[in-house]
């Protein structure tokens, strides 16, 4: 079983969106076997969670990101040191009824795109974990 060291970085929240795209591009370069649909789903989901951190994490000073690819699939973890979010942030997210709603889709979208998405509070940090199986 080929397991790989995670690709990881720390950054300021205002750098996070750029960091997500750069880190995922590095992950795909290192793992060309990850398929196109998986890549699109993963960048969509991680982008949404990262945007959520940037938008709602006014108190955050540092974010950490890691990507791990192995035979089972891809796992992405995201931490920030901002204020806690509601514990049911992921489980309570739903798509708006109105197809022309201009906001409110992000977490539901990320959850639909991944096989696993969890939010929890780890000590002084918010911790998002998401995975997509091959």
């Amino acid at each position, binding site marked *: 079983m080929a397991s790989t060291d995670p690709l990881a970085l720390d950054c300021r929240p205002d750098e996070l*969106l750029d960091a997500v795209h750069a880190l995922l591009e590095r992950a795909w370069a290192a793992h060309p076997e990850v398929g196109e649909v998986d890549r699109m789903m993963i960048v*969509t989901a991680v982008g949404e969670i990262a945007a959520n951190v940037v938008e709602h994490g006014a108190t955050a000073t540092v974010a950490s990101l890691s990507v791990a690819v192995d035979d089972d699939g891809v796992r992405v973890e995201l931490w920030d040191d901002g204020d806690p979010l509601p514990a049911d942030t992921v489980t309570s997210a739903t798509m708006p009824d109105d*197809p022309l709603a*201009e906001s409110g889709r992000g977490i539901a979208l990320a959850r639909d795109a991944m096989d696993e998405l969890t939010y929890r509070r780890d000590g002084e940090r918010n911790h998002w974990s998401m995975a997509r199986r091959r």
Partner: protein
Amino acid sequence: MTELGTETRDGIAVYSIQGRLDLVAAPNLKSLIDTTVKGGLIRGVVDLSGADFIDSSGLGAVIGGLKAAREAGGDLRIAGATGQVDHALKLMKLDRVFGRYSTVDEALDGFD
């Protein structure tokens, strides 16, 4: 950095995006469309051929632009969505809300 641009073709606004249409760029596109519609260009095409990524904020901006255009008696179409952008439109179930075209020319053609 995302680049936004507008041009007018046959009295129709064409909005172009280079790069990511995301949380950061979305408000700029929304206000660009709002200003252009208020200025009288109520028909528009969003050219997504240069966009390599879209998130729910970017989609929100395009939806907001659609509403503004329709409220003013016009419409907003999407052209050139590929890759993750096309994928995200479908994931967000918006592939049926907009008139979607492969090219700007096709989107302009037949606009009332």
